[in-house]
């Protein structure tokens, strides 16, 4: 086992937590991510393999799915982002590659993103100041890419109106975090 | 009728009865030596120089709507000659020199105001490029001045020096640059051309060209056929539409550029300021409005209106560099159709059709070029050869690989 100590996207040794009123923003470093893109001509097989890996159908455009080991959300035509607990799945890319073989290209994305969970009863008041998502239609299990503070982010509705997961570009974690907590203070 | 302060006083004392229409409203004659399509700044300037410099008097300007209703009536009024490339700089410097003598030439006060223009520099690489540009300007006989941070703080203390995301590192100034009262340019040229016998025919739309065995004989219009020895087209954003009537496809796309003006304010800006780390440039009109703009919307459009994202982008730039304008109010916004060319530079050239000439591809830089564009086009129409300052503005430069690409963006017009 290697002996290098990781830091979080926000540059700390521990995950950052901020609360305003009853809404909490939590940095979630323990997420392993891998992008899976079907090879041309193998789209069908790839989708089937993913279904067995996930234990549920690969999510359709605009959606996310929860499996036993892995969760996934759609990122593009025949392309998905799979996630798992970093502890135990740090090698997520290799693992999934071994499953999908030549039917898909797999790329490690774990540290390309910073992950935040925004939780609380009034998150929609925060979200409407952050990103262009039709919140009335943003039910649990919906996932979309949208711009927050000019940053391309993924927003996943994990519990409609109560909790969302936000993935943003890791290098801009600080700007994204600042934008979210500023708006929390404004909206709540 | 000459305009002067004395004339104004005389008329004031005699009830303003003596003022005549600034230009006639003639019916088209059956034939002219030269017909110019487009009663905008460039078309009217062309007519003026044809009559005043090249001795052409059987000239008509045909305008679909009302003169000056196009981009000359909807722009941010800036004049400058701070270009980098040899294909451009002499032309724009020639234009600036014509601006400098415009009022006396036209006997019309277009309020040419050489209050200076300054491009802000925010990185070392940007400074290298602007120094190269400043040198090119001087080597072409124009004026340019490199300002260090201290000078900028002194001249523009209200800029954001405290918490700028992209700190100001310097600036390139052209003191002879400035602004002009845009509508007055069209009116001044129209009045001057009219006084030399040029027919300005408004509300006359060109519906087609009469072309026989490769020669253009005149134009079909909503007021009937008008014969012409030579036909010059200067319709900016509508160039592709018009030339399609002659069967031509152009190296041009039409895009919308929005411009903005704030409520009137007591003087705050001495000159024109261009923000180098965002899409924002601004000046203040004599009436007190902040006149500002930014990037084009970026998609083909003839709709003369833009959308919110660019409005926001421009105002973000404004607040980033000049946070004092946060409580000033945007009064009006409008969009014009820009004839964006494939290398960001214009075309003043013959077409493959004998007797048919073209002037366009001005992108969003057409206003400052108005005098030289008119002069050079008049030269081409009168002498059938390019003016010395406009020899590079050829159609075939894309074929031969002699692009004039100031921004280095290549054949993607919306990036110029």
């Amino acid at each position, binding site marked *: 086992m290697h002996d290098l100590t990781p830091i979080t996207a926000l540059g700390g040794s521990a995950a950052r937590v901020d609360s305003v009123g009853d809404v909490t923003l939590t940095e979630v470093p323990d997420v392993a991510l891998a992008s899976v893109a079907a090879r041309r001509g193998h789209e069908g097989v790839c989708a089937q393999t993913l279904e067995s890996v996930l234990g549920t159908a690969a999510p359709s455009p605009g959606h996310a799915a929860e499996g036993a080991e892995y969760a996934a959300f759609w990122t593009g035509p025949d392309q998905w982002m799979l996630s798992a607990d970093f502890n135990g799945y740090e090698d997520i890319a290799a693992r999934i590659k071994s499953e999908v073989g030549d039917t898909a290209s797999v790329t490690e994305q774990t540290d390309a993103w910073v992950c935040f969970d925004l939780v609380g009863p009034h998150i929609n008041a925060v979200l409407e100041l952050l990103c262009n998502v039709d919140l009335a239609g943003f039910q649990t299990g919906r996932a979309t890419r949208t711009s927050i503070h000019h940053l391309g982010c993924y927003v996943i509705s994990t519990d409609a109106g109560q909790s969302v997961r936000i993935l943003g570009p890791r290098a801009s974690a600080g700007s994204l975090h600042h934008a979210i907590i500023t708006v929390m203070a404004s909206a709540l | 009728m000459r305009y002067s302060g004395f004339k104004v006083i005389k008329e004031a004392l005699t009830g303003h009865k003596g003022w005549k229409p600034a230009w006639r409203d003639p019916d088209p004659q059956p034939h002219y030596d030269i017909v110019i399509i487009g009663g905008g700044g460039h078309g009217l300037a062309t007519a003026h120089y044809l009559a005043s410099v090249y001795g052409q008097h059987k000239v008509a300007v045909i305008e679909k709507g009302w003169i000056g209703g196009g981009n000359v009536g909807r722009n941010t009024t800036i004049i400058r000659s701070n270009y980098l490339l040899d294909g451009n700089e002499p032309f724009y410097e020639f234009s600036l020199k014509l601006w400098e003598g415009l009022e006396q030439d036209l006997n019309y006060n277009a309020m040419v105001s050489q209050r200076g223009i300054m491009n802000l520099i925010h990185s070392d690489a940007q400074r290298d490029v602007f120094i190269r540009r400043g040198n090119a300007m001087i080597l072409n006989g124009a004026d340019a001045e490199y300002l260090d941070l201290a000078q900028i703080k002194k001249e523009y203390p209200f800029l954001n020096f405290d918490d700028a995301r992209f700190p100001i590192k310097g600036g390139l100034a052209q003191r002879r640059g400035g602004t002009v009262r845009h509508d007055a340019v069209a009116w001044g040229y129209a009045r001057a051309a009219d006084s030399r016998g040029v027919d300005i025919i408004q509300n006359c739309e060109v519906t087609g060209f009469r072309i026989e065995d490769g020669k253009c004989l005149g134009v079909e219009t909503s007021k009937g056929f008008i014969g012409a020895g030579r036909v010059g087209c200067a319709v900016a954003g509508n160039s592709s539409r018009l030339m399609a009537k002659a069967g031509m496809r152009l190296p041009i*796309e039409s895009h919308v550029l929005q411009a903005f003006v704030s409520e009137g304010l007591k003087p705050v800006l001495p000159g024109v300021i261009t923000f180098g780390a965002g899409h924002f440039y601004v000046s203040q009109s004599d009436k007190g409005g902040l006149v500002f703009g930014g990037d084009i919307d970026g998609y083909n459009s003839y709709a003369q209106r833009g959308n919110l994202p660019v409005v926001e982008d421009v105002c973000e730039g404004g607040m980033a560099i000049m946070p004092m304008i946060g409580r000033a109010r945007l009064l009006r916004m409008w969009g014009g159709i820009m004839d964006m060319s494939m290398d960001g530079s214009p075309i003043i050239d013959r077409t493959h059709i004998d007797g048919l000439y073209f002037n366009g591809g001005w992108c969003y830089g057409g206003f400052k070029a108005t005098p030289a564009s008119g002069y050079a086009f008049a030269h081409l129409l009168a002498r059938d050869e390019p003016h010395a300052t406009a020899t590079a503005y050829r159609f075939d430069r894309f074929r031969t690989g002699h692009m004039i690409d100031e921004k280095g963006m290549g054949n993607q017009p919306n990036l110029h």
Partner: protein
Amino acid sequence: MIINHPLLGPRDSAEFVYLGAAALMDRPDPETASAEDWHDYAYLRDNPAGPHRELWFHEGGDRSILIVTRDTTTHEITGVELAREVASK
């Protein structure tokens, strides 16, 4: 503007990057094309006042390139297709 993405439904055009006329997909055949063909392909545009087939890259979305048919005089959008599907037809 709102572009009705074939897979994702209505999306704000601000999520997209405009790439120009859809004719840019018809790259000349390097085997047969003349210098004139390349010039016309790279530099000449129809630039119509009316319906216009154009490319929009969903840079802030799923990275699909869409062929949008949009009226340049009204901005009304009458058709949206996935460029890759059209190209591979």
